[in-house]
């Protein structure tokens, strides 16, 4: 428990009144910049980092931690309220959270996101403090075959979110996978599906796709129906989480943390796969699966926790190996270097003081985020009371600004409109959004890992199987495919076909 003592020492040097003030300031600024669409935590940090330069090192660390958590939370706020995720990891939050907001439960969605982030961030940071070197040692052993297997598992689980019509679900999935193919083939340098447009050779940015499909597509859809349908005013709703919300949230928070942290700690983990896995898990475990897609609180609580836990896990390779695994991590790495922290295997021995101060600052930043943002949640929620034409005008404006902010490239605005049109079309034809966006996110990640595994084995299929973990996950994949079929077979003879219960049972998408 030496580490715990060191962490307490870290708290001692971090938690002075002046420092807390800087942390609070960081959280506030971080939240407000993070709320701007298209500005995910990575960009929020990059933009605000210079603010911390003039301060002495402890103060800059703690303000920086506040900006970091503020930026992350700000991203989920726009996802929930405006359906415009600022980075791929908050796409899941947008899907369920925005539906909640439409039902007048924005305050609850924001609250469960804030508390879930707090719980996950705290557990994650403590785990980093206690076990970073040990976890890092194990994590680098995990290679491409295992990543591929895990992503295959995710793809198999996509079938759980196909929606009522499997055909439409698969159409959505394949549209998504096709969008994911656009860009440069990493192994051969061939440009794919770019139509000779050089702006497309790096692929399409996931934020542009998601904002186009979600926000622009929906605005067009609403505009197309505004005359024919009466305006249903979004109900005000309760300001805070009720007892039932708490009861439905705490398990997803913990499960999300358990899924997100190990992924974040992997050198190529990222937050996309765990947020998605958490969503699917919650859907499977939920008592009322049909509420998913209509605004189920579990679908916000789980993925938000997974996102934050994986963000905390990211510090494992960053501190213990000096490896930045995400865009946010690269900026963190640059920031830590300016503060005189040189991450790497010897960091925890050489510069223990700074590291423990950093970890303590992260915990403090996380706590302040909760303290500051929880009271703000009902205020944010009232944003949705803006009359609909103005609200959607605002959404269109922020969505375009966000798409432009990603790369400051006017081409992305055109692309945004194209995906807006796609978003309108898939709504028109009843193609579910979730498999589509998952195809866009998981497809390219999976391809990279498959190519890497096969490249290493020089093209032999055995390259996909030569890790223990990979084989274990493949077993799960097989179980996920076979078990439902077997269960169906065993059950069906006993249930007569004309019984209504039996038909609904089979309708339940897996």
């Amino acid at each position, binding site marked *: 428990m030496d580490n715990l003592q060191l962490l307490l020492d870290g708290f001692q040097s971090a938690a002075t009144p002046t420092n807390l003030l800087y942390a609070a300031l960081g959280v506030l600024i971080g939240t407000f910049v993070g709320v701007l669409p298209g500005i995910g935590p990575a960009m929020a940090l990059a933009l605000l980092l210079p603010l911390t330069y003039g301060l002495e090192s402890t103060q800059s660390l703690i303000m920086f931690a506040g900006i970091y958590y503020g930026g992350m939370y700000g991203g989920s706020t726009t996802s929930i309220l405006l359906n415009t995720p600022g980075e791929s990891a908050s796409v899941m939050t947008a899907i369920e959270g925005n539906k909640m907001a439409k039902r007048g439960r924005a305050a609850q969605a924001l609250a469960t996101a804030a508390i879930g982030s707090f719980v996950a961030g705290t557990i994650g940071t403590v785990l980093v403090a206690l076990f970073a070197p040990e976890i890092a040692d194990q994590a680098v052993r995990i290679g491409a075959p295992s990543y591929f297997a895990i992503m295959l598992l995710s793809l198999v689980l996509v079938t759980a979110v196909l929606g009522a019509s499997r055909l439409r679900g698969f159409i959505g999935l394949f549209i998504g996978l096709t969008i994911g193919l656009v860009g440069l083939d990493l*192994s051969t340098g061939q440009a794919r599906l770019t139509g000779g447009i*050089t*702006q497309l050779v*790096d692929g399409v940015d996931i934020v542009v796709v998601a904002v186009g499909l979600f926000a622009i597509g929906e605005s067009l859809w609403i505009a197309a129906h505004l005359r024919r349908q009466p305006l249903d005013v979004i109900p005000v709703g309760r300001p805070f989480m009720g007892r039932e919300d708490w009861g439905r949230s705490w398990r997803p928070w913990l499960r999300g943390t358990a899924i997100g942290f190990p992924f974040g700690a992997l050198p190529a983990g990222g937050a996309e796969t765990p947020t998605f896995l958490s969503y699917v898990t919650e859907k499977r475990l939920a008592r009322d699966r049909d509420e998913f897609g209509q605004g189920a609180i579990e679908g916000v609580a789980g993925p938000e926790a997974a996102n934050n836990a994986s963000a905390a896990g990211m510090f494992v390779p960053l501190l213990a190996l000096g490896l930045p695994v995400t865009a946010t991590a690269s900026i963190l790495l640059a920031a830590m270097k300016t503060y005189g922290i040189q991450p*790497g295997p010897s960091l925890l021995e050489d510069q223990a003081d700074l590291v423990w101060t950093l970890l303590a600052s992260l915990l403090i930043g996380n706590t302040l985020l909760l303290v500051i943002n929880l009271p703000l949640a009902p205020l944010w929620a009232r944003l949705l009371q803006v009359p609909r034409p103005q609200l959607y005008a605002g959404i269109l404006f922020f969505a375009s600004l966000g798409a432009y902010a990603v790369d400051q490239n006017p081409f992305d605005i055109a692309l945004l409109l194209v995906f807006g049109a796609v978003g309108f079309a898939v709504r028109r034809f009843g193609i579910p959004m979730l498999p589509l966006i998952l195809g866009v996110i998981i497809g390219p990640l999976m391809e990279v890992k498959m190519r890497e595994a096969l490249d290493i084995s020089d093209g032999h299929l055995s390259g996909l199987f030569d890790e223990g973990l990979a084989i274990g996950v493949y077993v799960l994949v097989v179980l996920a495919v076979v078990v439902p079929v077997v269960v169906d077979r065993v059950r069906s003879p006993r249930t007569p076909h004309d019984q209504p219960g039996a038909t609904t049972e089979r309708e339940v998408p897996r």
Partner: protein
Amino acid sequence: MTAAAATPLALRALLAALLVVASAGCGVTRGEDTRDLLMIIPNAPGGGYDQTGREAAKVMEDAGITGGSFTVDNVEGAGGTNAFTEMLGDAGDEHTVMTVGLGVVGSLYSFGNDARLGDATPLAQLISEPEGVLVPGDSPFRTIDDLADAWRADPSGIAVGGGSSPGGPDHLFPMQLADTLGIDAREVNYVSYDGGGPLTSALLGAKIDVGFSGLAEFTQQIADGELRVLAVSGEDRQPQPELADVPTLVESDIDLVFLNWRGILAPPDISDERREELIGYLEKMHETEAWREQLEAYGWTDDFKTGEEFEEFLAEQDERVSSTLEGLGLL
């Protein structure tokens, strides 16, 4: 812009404020007689071009060499092809410069773009940076000869990794090394990683046998013994203490010097006087103590050339890259 005219003033103020935040670091309109310059960087903040370009701009700004300030704009995409195309479009613009390097040469070929660096106005090469041959700490290869023997015996059995896509420096280096060792470059099993981070984790986890990369990102892992360097590709050994014992390829009787390099170009069709003036700025920058310190901090080799010498160098680079890629059947 008609829509903007109709929006209330307050909203427009907000819009303006947001745009300033969102586009911090973006280009601004420059008058004809200003002394300010725009520096285009062809990749993301934090990458090699970014480090070189930003440090050069900062040194010139701090020392008041240009008499104005610099705006740095990262134009990402297609390994620098997008940025270069954009700069070619600014023909005659005398207030823009761009950082380029070996990777941009390769990308222009591999993206089938017919433009060549020589189409712009070459100003100066600033630095070169040797690459290194990296293996995991517990690798059976102790020397570059061990690797060479194993590689010759089974060219496709050795998984070779690099942090760039085909055509980039980390890809060209192992191909030229294989060629020098008498191995058919087409048999080399090259695994492409998305930058130094993923490459490091593949090496630390011993997923690949050997990695090829610039060494600046790896000094910490090398100092800690997690990674070892079998050889460096420069003319001389590297000055950093943790690399001082590593032999060059030439010392190990492998006749290859491979240098990644970076330099500065201006758009085409600028006046000769302006070209001379811009080169003059870079020459002054090169003389400063601050630049010397940066070279040392990043482990860059001082490899400054301007004018005709630089133009010839660019032509020779085109030749070398295209012949390597042709040999691999990638062109």
